[in-house]
């Protein structure tokens, strides 16, 4: 799919706004929410590559995040390796985990809910493992020292982390745009739509799916380093939390699977809804109910996500023109 000239301008304007946003936003809280939106969108995009483009739904996407977080944190606390290098080790370990999980599950032909469950199992396995071995700090977790500086990927103000998350987001969008334009992306979509037909037409479906989960793994690994350096504490329930696995697929499904901007739009809408609900409803727990209700409405009326809504109106317009 070729992006028309108008959407290029749209992207450039969006990027410019995002880059200038910290100068216009004085509230630390708002900047922090934006950072969280970008971070979730980034994780959503990592899920989207395997789930949205290649059609392989995973329920354990958090395993890459957690593994990345432990990788760079252990390298920092035990070996003094600065996270600016550690983040690449985290990417590597995430991709390597992707290779192992992908090889084991795709090799034996797991698809659909079976694949989803095996990823969930891997994430749980790693959580239990992280809890019981010593070098992860076990159940106590790992505390990182606060030493702001670029080489530590720690920043004194929220602005630093805002730009950090923005860079991650831009990279994830670039990967998705590359997928839309490349042979690899077309092959992933072919696998999603019909794996047998793709295989018959010369697509090495096993290799493509493994590459996709490795990209997802690498992206998740970097996200782990981001989180660890921002909050300076990780433990097994945080690093391998099922909630985060769910969140990354949720923002993508709400925004639109298999689209470049789906995860970002989904993340934006869900976080905004969540914050607004929390702001206006003081009864504890009620905001979550409102949040859940809106989620149900979006999913039942927009099976193609919010991006599908735009697409539909655009297509109708094209038909009217013709």
């Amino acid at each position: 799919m070729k992006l028309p000239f108008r959407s290029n301008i749209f992207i450039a304007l969006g990027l410019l706004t995002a880059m200038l946003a910290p100068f216009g936003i004085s509230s630390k809280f708002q900047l922090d929410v934006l950072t969280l939106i970008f971070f979730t969108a980034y994780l959503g995009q990592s899920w989207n590559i395997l789930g949205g483009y290649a059609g392989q739904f995973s329920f354990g996407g958090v395993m890459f995040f957690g593994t990345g977080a432990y990788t760079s944190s252990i390298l920092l606390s035990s070996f003094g390796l600065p996270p600016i290098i550690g983040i690449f080790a985290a990417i590597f370990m995430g991709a390597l985990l992707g290779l192992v999980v992908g090889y084991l599950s795709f090799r034996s032909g797991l698809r659909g809910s079976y694949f989803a469950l095996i990823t969930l199992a891997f994430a749980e396995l790693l959580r239990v493992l992280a809890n019981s071995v010593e070098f992860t700090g076990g159940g106590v977790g790992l505390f990182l020292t606060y030493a702001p500086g670029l080489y530590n990927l720690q920043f004194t103000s929220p602005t630093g982390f805002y730009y950090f998350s923005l860079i991650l987001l831009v990279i994830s969008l670039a990967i998705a745009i590359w997928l839309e334009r490349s042979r690899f992306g077309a092959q992933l979509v072919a696998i999603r739509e019909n794996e047998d037909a793709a295989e018959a037409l010369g697509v090495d479906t096993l290799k493509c799916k493994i590459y996709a989960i490795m990209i997802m793994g690498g992206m998740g690994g970097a996200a782990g380093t981001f989180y660890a350096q921002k909050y300076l504490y990780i433990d097994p329930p945080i690093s391998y939390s099922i909630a985060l696995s769910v969140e990354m697929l949720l923002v993508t499904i709400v925004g639109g699977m298999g689209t470049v901007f789906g995860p970002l739009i989904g993340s934006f809408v869900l976080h905004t809804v969540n914050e607004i609900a929390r702001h206006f409803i003081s009864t504890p727990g009620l905001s979550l109910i409102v949040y859940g209700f809106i989620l149900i409405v979006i999913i039942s009326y927009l099976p193609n996500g919010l991006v599908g809504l735009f697409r539909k109106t655009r297509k109708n317009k094209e038909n009217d023109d013709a």
Partner: protein
Amino acid sequence: MLEVKSVTKRFGGLVAVSDVDLDVAKGEIVSLIGPNGAGKTTLFASIAGFLKPDEGEVILNGKSITNLKPHKICRQGMVRTFQITQPFATLNTLENIMVGAYANTSNKSLAKSNAERVAEIVGMTSLLYQTADGLTVAARKRLELARALATNPQLLLLDEVMAGLNPTEIDEIVDVIQGIRNTGVTIFLIEHVMKAVVNLSDRTYVLNDGKLIAHGTPNSIASDPAVIEAYLGHGAAEAMARGGKA
């Protein structure tokens, strides 16, 4: 070009394909016919790598491809279509064909121009931007053909590309297949439409109950008693012969 040597495929106790030998020479159109359930599609799937034959060997251009995966076989120049069409439903015609074209190039604009060229050969130029789930049965059959052709094969395995088409559409697709053969592609097809089999094929194999029962030119096959019995039941050949005399 293609040699199938005593291929057998079993599903549990059922022998779906039993000790089949056949060959397809370069430039030929060879057809495989047989009653429903004879094992034609199973034989195709065993040849194209979707099923592993229990016994026997499949040889393409002198090299054994018996246990290769379908995508590898595709790269060696043999590609199959599916009897029940398997379009990439949410993609449009052009994108569908491009997946096939990507077998030979990673360049998007090259894949696109190849796909457009193939679309023209199969007569789908006006449908390029139509999504596949909105195509008619006839158009889906063409799309199967187009995608396979876009991989630039030496040998095409066509599994009932005419089933479900009306006579006009059949005539059109027969012309398309003739055209493809004239570009130097060898064709091996499963077909039920006898008129097309007779018009198209140089040679015909007949499969019944997983076994080859006859082989020859389409016209000689049509009068073969074993073939008539396979289709019409035991004693039919005799009855027809008597009926012919009377």
